[in-house]
């Protein structure tokens, strides 16, 4: 089934492109913005397939890059759909800017609406929509693989727009597949990751940028004792391809790792501190409001501020229904669940590739604690 891939220049879109190239015979038409070139879009896809040992077997001519038309002139896409007999849209584009309402509306809602119109005009067989596991907002029950109705309490405007876009997809009349990954991290086998500093990478990057200037014997960190819902990029890619192949039309799939093996945010922070930051003592907080006002280290404060929203989201005890994923596993899906060990693989890769952290490790080795002491502030 030939596909129009929207967002192919992005991190997840690139993984999807790699999956479609390796696991299907589809022709992929990828509209790209002016800032990108065919080669800049193909480079990470090639690299992903090279790491999988598949690049030599892939005909990269199967992916065609075309200019993304202006938002008010989609006739060019109509022509492409006709010309290449496109039968499905795989929509991976969007904004993750948590509170930029205008951008979120344009990128997550308006664009989705336009693509659904396109799909309808051409009676496409399927619309694959990349959403988020957190599109329900905060709810006190497991997140089911169904549409979420009503206005729940949302961690960010982002989740609200994704929820609304899901409802547009479902109401469009076009057969659909909604894919909801949780927080995507690097490959479980070697830790490779080409995304931006989202999720856990935000904490690691904040440490790299803010706290490697000198050794700190005391760290203050917000880190709740709640499982952090991570999904490895290889698991995401395999599951999306399998979902396209095996799930019935009008399905929704939550892509989250098995909760019994998932580490808590606290354990992951401890793992990082024990192997990288190596302070003598850690003050652990559950939320920003618990943080002591007298912390005068501006960089430490910035790290706490910069990671506050994600810490807040991760403090909610998210639970997910994984019925569709179980079905896919039963059909042979290789889905590498995130565990403390596999996340360590990603952490080690990040650390190894960071000159700042490497310099920090070398310069401060004599000061490192064997095992940091921990002090708990606030009630879990």
């Amino acid at each position: 089934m030939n596909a129009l891939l929207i967002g192919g220049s992005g991190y997840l879109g690139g993984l999807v492109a790699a999956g479609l190239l390796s696991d299907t015979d589809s022709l992929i038409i990828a509209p790209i913005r002016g800032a990108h070139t065919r080669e800049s879009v193909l480079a990470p896809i090639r690299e992903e397939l090279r790491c999988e040992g598949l690049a030599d077997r892939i005909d990269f001519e199967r992916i065609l890059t075309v200019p993304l038309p202006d938002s008010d002139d989609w006739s060019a896409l109509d022509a492409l759909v006709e010309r290449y007999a496109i039968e499905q849209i795989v929509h991976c584009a969007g904004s993750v800017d948590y509170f930029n309402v205008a951008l979120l509306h344009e990128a997550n809602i308006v664009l989705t609406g336009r693509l659904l119109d396109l799909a309808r005009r051409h009676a496409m067989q399927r619309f694959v929509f990349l959403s988020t596991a957190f599109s329900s907002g905060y709810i006190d029950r497991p997140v089911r693989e169904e549409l979420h109705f009503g206005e729940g309490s949302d961690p960010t405007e982002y989740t609200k727009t994704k929820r609304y876009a899901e409802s547009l997809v479902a109401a469009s009349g076009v057969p659909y597949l909604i894919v909801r990954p949780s927080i995507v991290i690097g490959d479980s086998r070697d830790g490779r990751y080409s995304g931006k500093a989202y999720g856990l990478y935000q904490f690691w990057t904040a440490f790299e940028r803010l706290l490697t200037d000198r050794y700190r014997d005391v760290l203050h960190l917000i880190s709740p004792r709640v499982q952090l819902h991570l999904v490895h990029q290889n698991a995401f890619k395999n599951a999306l391809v399998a979902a396209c192949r095996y799930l019935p039309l009008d399905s929704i799939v939550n892509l989250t790792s098995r909760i019994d093996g998932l580490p808590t945010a606290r354990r992951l922070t401890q793992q990082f501190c024990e192997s990288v930051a190596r302070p003598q003592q850690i003050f652990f907080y559950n939320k920003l409001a618990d943080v002591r006002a007298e912390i005068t280290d501006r960089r430490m404060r910035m790290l706490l501020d910069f990671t506050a929203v994600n810490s807040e989201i991760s403090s909610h005890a998210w639970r997910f229904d994984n019925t569709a994923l179980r079905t896919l596993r039963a059909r042979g899906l290789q889905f590498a669940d995130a565990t403390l060990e596999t996340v360590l693989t990603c952490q080690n890769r990040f650390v190894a590739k960071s000159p700042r952290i490497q310099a920090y490790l070398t310069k401060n080795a004599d000061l490192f604690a064997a095992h940091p002491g921990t002090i708990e502030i606030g009630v879990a």
Partner: protein
Amino acid sequence: MNVITDSTDLGRDEALLWAILFRFESLAVEQYAGLVPALLTPEKQTLVALLRTRPHGDEELAGTQLEAPLAELMRSVTSRDEARVLIGQGLFLELIGEAIYRSFSQNAAASEPTRKLCALGAAASGRARTLVPALLRTRIGEGAVLLQAIMTEAAPLLRSLDDLGDGIDAMFLDRFGLSFADLMGDVAAELIAVCLDLGIDRRKFVAFLTSALMGI
């Protein structure tokens, strides 16, 4: 006061600093004159007049790690739109400038001409800081409206600013102790305070700064 007369032998690092400040301030004067004349203060005009007595620093900048990201930063705030100039140049770049000026005005590793120039610069940017909030309030608004405008207008600036980080550390950290993270810490603290006074939700503003400064 002529602080430039004995500045002919600034040394490469300080000449580079002056070249950067010349670009910031020249653009400020040009844009303020056309779009936000209230920010074209006597302090600012005096400062730019002094900076213009030296060569523009093209040679010092050429080929450095700062050349390309600085050019991109300048492009990101060059605009014929009042809101973009007011937010990008009047709010963000003035606070960044003030943090740089304050750091160098008291920096024992810097030369006397540089310290004097930076004291003038700090005063000029400090004056702008007192004027900008009222201008933002009257020309754009407060609270959510202003936050949306800031997110729209300042995002390109912050993205290009993020690209300057490694260059600033490479050029100024060893000799002057100026690090990009410390600089942005000062700027972020001031920005947050200004924005809170203008009714902006702290959590949302910090999330915006985070994503912009983390390259997201």
